[in-house]
Every structure is written in structure tokens, then in C-alpha cells.
């Protein structure tokens, strides 16, 4: 079935003795395990990367990528001058920053609280419950949100009415003023528990003798949290914060599409990604949408490079 020579495929005793192609053939089995995936990556990641050049074309479905006319920066200019530009950029940055300001510290706070719980059963129960929403699809989560906030006997309206805070049910889901709050809360609900995992791991690594020493010196729990736990996990917090800044233009997609698709909410819900989707795939303006996407990608790469640089600096200066 097999020859003994190719059986010793991967251990090459004298690597330079044979020409490259012979060595390559002798390890065909390993190569055969690698190449299918490389082809997949080429087709589904590299072809689209190359295809992004259509942002400089007037791409038409009939003429295809190679038949379409090149038009330079036309679509970029159109985007920069369009009335959508300011709104889309503002929404992207505002939603992203709101998510960061609230969604970033919340899991740290939760991790600190969970760490104080001594009853292990209680701790496990809370953790199990709080991780669960992470595994639900955005469709389900948006369904919950729609049901809870519904004008038609949604639980929140029932609560507000029974407390006498409002006499008429509030139409939360199509009032632009509420949209950002709803998005931030829904995201917080979905991800707060799951995001604690990393911080809990970091807290678990803190030297326990520091707490003993502190309590002998008379520091109460509150002081211990601020003087020992928080400073000890600062490096982790800092790295995550910097990486989050790298993703500043990722304001979210599924949540905004599912909860903000109503035309009434367009002024507050349209971000770069959802805009590119709507203009490109629904309205078939492919080249224009590709230009919008490329604009975002270029700025994102810049932000990421900066973030990585900062992370490395923060990492080294902290040691």
C-alpha cells in the first residue's frame, strides 16, 4: 500500500540532500491536509479582498468584475458629499462609544462583585445565568426586546403604568430618542456575563497573600478591591480597552439591523456597516457600497495599528 520511503515523510534526515519538489512530493500527505483549507481561504477571503477594487469601478452584474468600467475615486467622493455621510459617521462613533463607555466597565464591576461571593453554589448559579444570553442569536434577543418594549402590553409598559409613571403606553421601538438606549441596554444584557470570564481569570491570578496582609493592616473589603484587586488587573483592563478602541468603527450589525430597520429610526440607527449593506445588497449599488466598506476598512486598519502599538507600549511600560 505504502512505500517505506514516504512513510518517513515528515522526518527528513538530511533535508538538503533532495531537491525541493522531491521533498514536497514525499510529504504529499501533510500537504494534502493543508491545501484544501488554503483553497477555501483563497476563494472566500482573498478573492473578496481583490474584489474590493470594484470600489473604483462602475461594477455591473452583467459585465462582471473584468468587464466593468474603471472610474477612479468617483464613489468615494459621492459618499463624502452625500447627505448620509455625516449621519452615518456620527451614528457609528456615538453608538460605538456608548457601547464602550457602558459595556466596558460593567463586566469589570460584575467580575469584582462575583469575586466577593463566598457561597460557591450561588456564584455558579449567577455565572450560569449571566453567560446564557451570549449564546442566544440576535434574532431571539431582538424578539425578547420587541416583546418587552411592545406598546401592546409589553412588560415595561405594564410596569411603568402600574407605577403610575406614564398613563399611555410608550412606543419605545419607533421613537428615535430611545433607540441608542435600547441598543446599549440590549448589548449589555447579552454580553455582560460572558465578558467577565477574562477578568475573573485575571482576578484569580492575584497573589492571595496581599489580601491577608491588607486585612491584618485593617483594610476593609472595599479598600482591598480598590488598592489590590483593581491595580493588579489594570494591565488586562488596559489591553482590552486599547483593543476596543481599535474596533471603534464596529458599532454593531445584527442588533442595529434587527432593532433599527424601521425607516423611522434611520436617522439614529444607520451606521457604516448597515448603510453599506442596505445600499449595496438591497439597492444593488455595489460599487458605491464597496467604496463605503473600503473607507471603513482603511480607517479601521489605521486604528488597529495604532491600538496594537499602544498595547505593546502599555505592555512593556507596565513590566
Amino acid at each position, binding site marked *: 500500500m505504502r512505500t517505506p520511503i514516504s512513510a518517513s515523510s515528515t522526518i527528513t534526515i538530511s533535508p538538503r540532500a533532495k531537491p525541493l519538489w522531491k521533498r514536497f512530493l514525499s510529504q504529499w500527505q501533510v500537504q494534502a491536509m493543508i491545501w484544501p483549507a488554503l483553497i477555501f481561504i483563497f476563494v472566500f477571503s482573498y478573492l473578496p479582498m481583490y474584489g474590493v477594487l470594484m470600489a473604483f469601478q462602475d461594477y455591473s452584474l452583467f459585465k462582471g468584475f473584468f468587464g466593468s468600467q474603471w472610474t477612479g475615486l468617483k464613489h468615494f467622493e459621492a459618499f463624502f458629499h452625500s447627505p448620509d455621510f455625516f449621519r452615518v459617521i456620527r451614528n457609528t462613533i456615538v453608538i460605538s462609544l456608548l457601547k464602550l463607555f457602558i459595556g466596558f466597565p460593567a463586566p469589570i464591576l460584575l467580575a469584582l462583585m462575583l469575586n466577593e461571593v463566598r457561597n460557591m453554589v450561588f456564584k455558579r448559579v449567577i455565572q450560569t445565568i449571566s453567560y446564557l444570553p451570549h449564546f442566544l442569536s440576535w*434574532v431571539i434577543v431582538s424578539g425578547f426586546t420587541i416583546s418587552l418594549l411592545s406598546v401592546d402590553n409589553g412588560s415595561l409598559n405594564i410596569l411603568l403604568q402600574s407605577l403610575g409613571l406614564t398613563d399611555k403606553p410608550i412606543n419605545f421601538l419607533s421613537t428615535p430618542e430611545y433607540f441608542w438606549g435600547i441598543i446599549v441596554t440590549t448589548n449589555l444584557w447579552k454580553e455582560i456575563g460572558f465578558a467577565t470570564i477574562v477578568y475573573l481569570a485575571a482576578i484569580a491570578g492575584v497573589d492571595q497573600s496581599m489580601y491577608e496582609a491588607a486585612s491584618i493592616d485593617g483594610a476593609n473589603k472595599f479598600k482591598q478591591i480598590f488598592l489590590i484587586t483593581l491595580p493588579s488587573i489594570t494591565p488586562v483592563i488596559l489591553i482590552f480597552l486599547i483593543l476596543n478602541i481599535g474596533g471603534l468603527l464596529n458599532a454593531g450589525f445584527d442588533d442595529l439591523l434587527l432593532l433599527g430597520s424601521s425607516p423611522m429610526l434611520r436617522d439614529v440607527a444607520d451606521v457604516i456597516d448597515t448603510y453599506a449593506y442596505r445600499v449595496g445588497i438591497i439597492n444593488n449599488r455595489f460599487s458605491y457600497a464597496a467604496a463605503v*466598506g473600503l473607507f471603513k476598512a482603511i480607517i479601521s486598519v489605521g486604528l488597529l495599528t495604532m491600538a496594537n502599538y499602544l498595547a505593546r507600549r502599555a505592555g512593556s511600560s507596565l513590566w
Partner: protein
Amino acid sequence: MKLSSSDKTLHIIIYILLIILGMVTLYPFWNSAVISFNVGMDTSRGGVTIWPRQFTLDNYKIVFQDNRILHAFYISVMRTLAGTAISIFLTAIFAYGLSVKGVIGKKYYMIFAIITMYFSGGLIPFYLVNRELGLMNSFWVMVIPTAVSVWNMIIFRTFFMGLPVGLEESAKIDGCSTFGIFFRIVLPLSGPVLATLSLFTAVYHWNDWFTATIFINKTELFPIQTMLQQILNSNIMSEQLTIALKGNGAAADAMSRMQSVTTKSLTMATMMVATLPIIAVYPFVQRFFVKGVLVGSLKE
């Protein structure tokens, strides 16, 4: 260790806050379940929150008799099975190949793969590539384009490289081929990492609604999540419509009360059905994922 009184106060506050958090997290789920078990007409009279007022299984009976929903459920099951199996297989052999010593071109293959973690063409070119490949309105568009996960490859590879080298060496000396080593020695030792990544991949496939939204416009190929999204979308529409009609007299009101089941109660029952598989695997996922997440974040 004894707690001082200020520490006790702090602990009480923390316990209370955590209990509130737990309840707030569970409530949306609980409330939807309650509505799905309540007579729809009764729900629309208001006040159904933490306990069904008129218990019924009618909503579920109708959902389980609805062929479109059952079919969407079937599509979801099939894509989850096919998607997970193909993805894990391709990614695992890829990772193993890149973990073997002395593979020609390994460094370049790694760079080739990792670049895709930082750069992508974006949605539109991705969409058009799939379109050109004839994947529009095909079941396989939900399986093939995401089959190779570079992220999972790195986790697999880290695991494979941590396996004792001696095992593979001795198998090689015994005349075992690379395929043989992988399938007969490496894979049986990779239970935990296989389970973790399979579960994550399966959860992704079960939850994904967007792929079908953009690539598929035949309802009979919709997975349950996409179907549900369309139902929810039409619900919002009808609710806004009802609000508009309400000033117009009781016509809309009567319309929505004609049957004991309502769109809302049916939607909630469908949502519960779509969530059930996640709840069913959740205990297993939870056992593994903490480890998985930490491996992932170390790589970052």
C-alpha cells in the same frame, strides 16, 4: 476569616445586586415562555408577566403543525450538522498539517491564513464572490464559505503542538502514515478541543440568520432563525398598523381578537422552539467554553 460590619454591608449589597442581575437576565426569557404558554387572546388583554393566566398548549400545537416552521427547523438542523462536520474536519486537518515539523512552506501558509484575520474585503465583494460561484439560493452557501476558520485552526494547532511528541515519533517508526497518525493517534487524544470547537461552531450555525437573509430568497431554504426574523419583522409592521388603526374604531381590535391564538403568542412559541436546542446544549457548552475563551484571549 471574620467579616467586619462594613464588609458585611458590602457583601449584602453585592448579593442583592447579583440577585437583581440574575432576575433581569432571566426575565425576558421567562416572560416570553409565559406568553407562549398563555392563551393568546388573554395575553392581549394585558397583565401577563411572570405566570400564565390561562395556560394552554395551543400555541405550540399550531407551531408544530406549521409545515413551514417545521421545515425551517429541519434546514437549521441540517446546516448545523453539515456545517459543523465540514468545518471541524477541514480546520482540524489544516491545523494538524501546520503543526507537523518540517512541512515545506509552513511559514508562508501560516502568514497566508493569519492575514485574513486582520483584513477582509468586506460584505459586498464577499457577497459578489459567492454570487459568482453560483451559491445564491443554495443550501451550501450556509455551509461552505465559512467552513475554514483561521481562529479555530490556531486553537487546534496550539492543542496539537502540546501533544507529547514521542507518540507520533514512535508511530512513524512503526510505519504509520501521516493520515494514520492523525486519525488513529492525534484525533482520539483531542476529545476536549474537538468538543469545544464543535459546540462553538454548532452554536454559530444554529444562530446565524444573516447568511440566508442575503443569499437565499426561497422560503423553503430558510433556517429557523431567518424565518423567525421575518415573522418578527412582519409583527412590528402589524403592530404599527394596529396603532394607526386604533383611532379608526374597534375594527382592528376585533380583528386581533377573533382567534384565541395571536401572532404574538405564536411568535413567542416559535422563539422558544428555536431556542430550545441552545438551552439543551448549554450545560455542555458551559463546561468547555471558559477554557476556550481563555485560549482565545491569550492568542489576541
